[in-house]
């Protein structure tokens, strides 16, 4: 932190400025995924499997889109820009107890682990669900015709087992957001809604480059086609 008068002024002014952190697709996918997983959870434990199938397809679509956006999306959405190696993760973790650390631009090194973990787990749970068979042999996953009833029942149990693990990781994610809010006084929820936070640019970070919407649309069309093909079990 600079001690000069001009520096302080600059900081004060910059602190009130809006800084773009998350683009619209990232925010939309985040909240839709949260809602989608909620609907899956509710419909799953209540055996409302017709709704469970539809919400499962929605979650699959969102995860596919998020992975795609992690490759071609806006700068803060891209995996190459936030997935860090062990050293950067340890360095970041060693500052976790300090309250004066600056806001990370985009995902921080530890948050990146949880993003990758959550996306991987959601994909695992959905993947198992595609092959899962319900006890009635009624609302089975769209790819369940490729496995036997017994195998499908096993996969249904694994589907639930991995979902439990996903819930714990989501719990950790929520705890982390709360920790940043209470301990570090950093509100991570508002930027995920508005896409902006107040602050100034730190060195080494360029302004977020926003990916064009048409790129999202192309991905959306492809993801829809994939989910549709899966939903009919590839029986064209």
């Amino acid at each position, binding site marked *: 932190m600079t001690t000069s008068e001009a520096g302080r002024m600059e900081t004060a002014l910059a602190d009130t400025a809006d800084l773009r952190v998350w683009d619209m697709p990232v925010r939309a996918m985040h909240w839709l995924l949260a809602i989608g997983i909620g609907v899956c959870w509710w419909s799953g*434990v209540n055996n409302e499997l017709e709704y469970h199938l539809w919400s499962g397809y929605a979650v699959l679509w969102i995860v596919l889109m998020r992975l795609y956006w992690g490759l071609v999306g806006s700068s803060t959405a891209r995996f190459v820009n936030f997935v860090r190696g062990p050293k950067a993760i340890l360095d970041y973790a060693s500052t976790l107890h300090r309250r004066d650390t600056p806001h990370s631009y985009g995902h921080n090194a530890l948050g990146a682990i949880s993003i990758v973990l959550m996306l991987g787990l959601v994909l695992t749970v959905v993947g198992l669900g595609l092959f899962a068979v319900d006890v009635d*042999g*009624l*609302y*089975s996953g769209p790819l369940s*015709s490729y496995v036997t*009833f017994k195998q499908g029942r096993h996969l249904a149990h694994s589907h639930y087992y991995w979902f439990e693990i996903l819930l714990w990781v989501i719990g950790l994610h929520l705890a982390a957001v709360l920790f940043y809010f209470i301990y570090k006084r950093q509100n991570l929820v508002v930027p995920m809604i508005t896409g902006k936070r107040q602050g100034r640019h730190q060195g080494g970070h360029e302004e977020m480059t926003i990916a064009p919407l048409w790129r999202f649309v192309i991905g959306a069309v492809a993801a829809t086609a994939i989910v549709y093909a899966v939903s009919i079990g590839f029986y064209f």
Partner: protein
Amino acid sequence: MSAFGFGRIAAAAFLVLGFAVVEVAAGPAEIAQIKPRQDKLRDMGGALKAINDEIKKGRIDWDNTVIPNAQTIKDRSAYLLNWFPKGSGPETGKKTYALPAIWQKNDDFQKLGKAAQAEAAKLNDIALKKDEAGLKAQALATGKACKACHDNYRSPDYEKENEDE
């Protein structure tokens, strides 16, 4: 955060309640029902899955798949209500998903069982007629009849593994 803790506690409370209400000694004849009924019900679930797989594939093999499986469901369903004598529930100490409610609300259970038998018989008729449009609707109706009972009288199994697998 834990959804499982609550479910387990509720299930345990339900179980204790069940013991208190249904005081039937579990004899060897009742215990002997559990394993075969699980096997037969699993066969029925597998048979309906096989029929639904044919519908999904869009190339329905009537003679080798739909007709024999519909026959299995119909034949087994005829004996369905004999598989649940009083005392063959969790009070046996055996691993079973059968809930004490089966014997507490036995009239309703019997009604649902008979409805499932009726749907299974219709499914068999449609299979023999090789009526494709009818099959889709009736496979759904039959599955829903199975599910109606499972929703109320079978312990949710998403946190348990099947015993013999």
